[in-house]
């Protein structure tokens, strides 16, 4: 059995190189699978292409003449029209057990840029599906990818590797906003500034059901763009004080160089509209909201970027503490998988050996019955049982040796010896 992975990932390659080697659409993937089939018809292939990695998994059952790293780099070079010397030094290659373990680590998100992020398992699933659709999978890659998805589920269930959020926007919404409010469809959101961070936070808020969004920005054009993107409406900067009083969630990400909302200004805005709970996310640096606003009353919850980063860091540490447990699951599952594969490799030889010796027994028995036709049924049964016992006893030592060897890896040498010694060539 040969399993090979060639990876161009965020550990070794920059985003520019990854972009050049990426299979960015399903159309490109189809073309790649088609090209691969013409050059390596006997080899199975799965292509995994995400923002952070381009990985090529090849597998075949042949003992020799399997796919090698050079074949893969030539394929990449030919397909993307990138000279191979521009990327070979940024590639990582594993074969056999290491390749299997690598896929399990990728599927479990141990190898991800953001440890424990949940998207990778779906990306692995999708890569496997596309490979199946393009008839590029075979018995080995089927078992390998199905096992990888199973290991990923086990790691997620049995460890806290994916627990807690680790990005500023997700922590802001998932850990703080949701700790204050139970539902968001009846909440009013005010966005001051229209930066990327605001957009990302709004994406999370929208996924929680937010419907009323007001975008307030100095540049009307940028406000229009963001409002259109998130389904909100643009508010004039002159209505900011009214909105400060009525909004339930305030996200501020302006590039202002001084404090935008002073304690007096916010207090005045709040006085007009009562003291309902308000969640303020000040994601600007320097801060848009004066820190003392947090003490105006018990229902004002103000968080700045440092407070959120602190939580992100704590969650990251908690996830890192789980790596050891996740790796131990992966190691044990890699062993289980390799055992299955090795037994699968020895299976056909054992079957052929038994079949061959069975054929010999039957032939010799037929000859005996022809020579001694007076043997009755009982006597024939006794002879057959004796022959069967002899065959089993003779087969026992080589089969046991095969089983023992298979525990340590594919017993290629022994398999070859058994074939040569006991099974005649066709």
């Amino acid at each position, binding site marked *: 059995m040969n399993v090979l992975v060639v990876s161009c990932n965020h550990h070794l390659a920059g985003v520019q190189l990854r972009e050049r080697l990426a299979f960015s659409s399903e159309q490109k993937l189809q073309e790649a699978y088609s090209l691969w089939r013409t050059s390596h018809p006997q080899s199975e292939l799965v292509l995994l292409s995400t923002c952070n990695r381009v990985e090529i998994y090849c597998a075949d059952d042949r003992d020799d003449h399997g796919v090698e790293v050079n074949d893969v780099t030539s394929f990449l070079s030919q397909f993307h029209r990138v000279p191979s010397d521009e990327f070979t030094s940024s590639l990582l290659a594993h074969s056999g057990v290491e390749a299997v373990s690598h896929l399990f680590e990728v599927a479990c998100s141990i190898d991800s840029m953001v440890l424990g992020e949940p998207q990778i398992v779906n990306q692995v699933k999708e890569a496997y599906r596309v490979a199946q659709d393009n008839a590029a999978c075979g018995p080995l890659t089927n078992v390998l990818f199905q096992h990888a998805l199973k290991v990923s589920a086990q790691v997620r269930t*049995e460890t*806290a590797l994916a627990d807690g959020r680790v990005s500023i926007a997700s922590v802001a919404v998932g850990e703080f906003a949701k*700790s*204050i409010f*139970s*539902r968001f469809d009846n909440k009013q959101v005010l966005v001051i500034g229209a930066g990327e961070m605001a957009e990302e936070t709004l994406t999370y808020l929208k996924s929680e059901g937010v419907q009323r969004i007001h975008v307030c920005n100095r540049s009307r054009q940028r406000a229009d763009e963001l409002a259109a993107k998130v389904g909100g409406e643009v508010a004039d900067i002159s209505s900011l004080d009214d909105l400060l009083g009525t909004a339930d969630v305030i996200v501020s990400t302006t590039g202002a160089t001084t404090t935008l909302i002073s304690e007096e200004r916010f207090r005045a805005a709040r006085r007009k509209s009562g*003291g309902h*709970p308000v969640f303020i996310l000040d994601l600007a640096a320097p801060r848009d909201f004066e820190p003392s606003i947090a003490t105006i009353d*018990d229902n004002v919850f103000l968080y700045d970027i440092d407070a959120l980063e602190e939580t992100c860091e*704590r969650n990251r540490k908690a996830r890192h503490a789980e790596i050891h447990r996740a790796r131990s699951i992966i190691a044990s599952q890699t062993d289980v998988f390799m055992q299955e594969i090795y037994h699968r490799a020895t299976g056909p030889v054992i079957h052929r050996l038994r079949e061959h010796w069975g054929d010999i027994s039957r032939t010799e028995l037929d000859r005996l019955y022809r020579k001694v036709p007076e043997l009755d049924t009982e006597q024939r049964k006794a002879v057959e049982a004796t022959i069967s016992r002899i065959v089993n006893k003779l087969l026992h030592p080589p089969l046991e040796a095969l089983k023992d060897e298979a525990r340590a890896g594919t017993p290629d040498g022994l398999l070859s010896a058994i074939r040569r010694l006991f099974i005649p060539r066709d």
Partner: protein
Amino acid sequence: MDFLSRVQISCFLFSYLASLSCELWQLVRGRHGSVRALVLVFTIAGFVAHSAFLITRSRVEGLPPLLASQQDWLLVLAWLGSLFFLMLLLWRSRHAQGLFLLPTITALVIYALFVSAEGSGTLRNDAGRRWGMLHAASLVLGMASVAGVALSGLMYLLHHSRLKNRRGWLMRLTLPSLEILVTVNRWLVIVAVPCLTAGLITGFMLIFLRSERTGSASVPWTDPTILTTVIAWLAMTAVLWRTLRSGNRSGRSMATLSLLSGGLLLVTVLGPLALSRSSSGKGIHGGSVSESAAGPSEELLAVEEVSR
């Protein structure tokens, strides 16, 4: 049936304690799916044993558990808490509500071990049972609601502090959102007030029926149970009044008030026992531990006689 009769208080007490241990473990080591499953298993086991015990008690005494003895009354209160916790576990098992509910449930069960377990066995006719049930059921529901009000208030205050300060062990607590806690708190106050009111009215009615029989027209205001129930009722009415007036703007002060009123519940539950031990010996609900074991509550006996 034989199996049911073998269930002891210790069976469900240890189940609840095991469940509480799992919750504490999660507080230290972080929330974990398999430990949450253990909490569910132990709580279900405890709840089943608890229910079996109350059913057996009811059969043996020929009375609903609420009327049989002080111990049964406390165990019914704990059973309601356990049922509520089980529902929460099935709904939102990721939250650490067990850290608040399980100590309350186990405390009630442990407390029940120290009060009289002997039932009266005399309230056999339908009229006495009906009035007694109405009185006891409305009071126990009211008390359970007040306990819920106090616990949700405590959870609110801790969660609020966690969100404001973002430091210390509180960060390990996974609690429902402030909005949910406020909503639950309000609904429990709204349930508690009518229940306590119904309990008080039926209680006074029972006293009135007894006074007709005995010829004395006075209400024993110094009776510990009457006194504490009236105080709890007044507190809850004040909380309800505040709730209705404040809208959604004073979560923290509401929670503080709720927690204080929960303290009154403690007085209501523990008070009668403590006071009756030191006073004349016979309270309106059966008096001291030993004496209450000797017979049924006086007002219920009075009703029984009236109905004859």
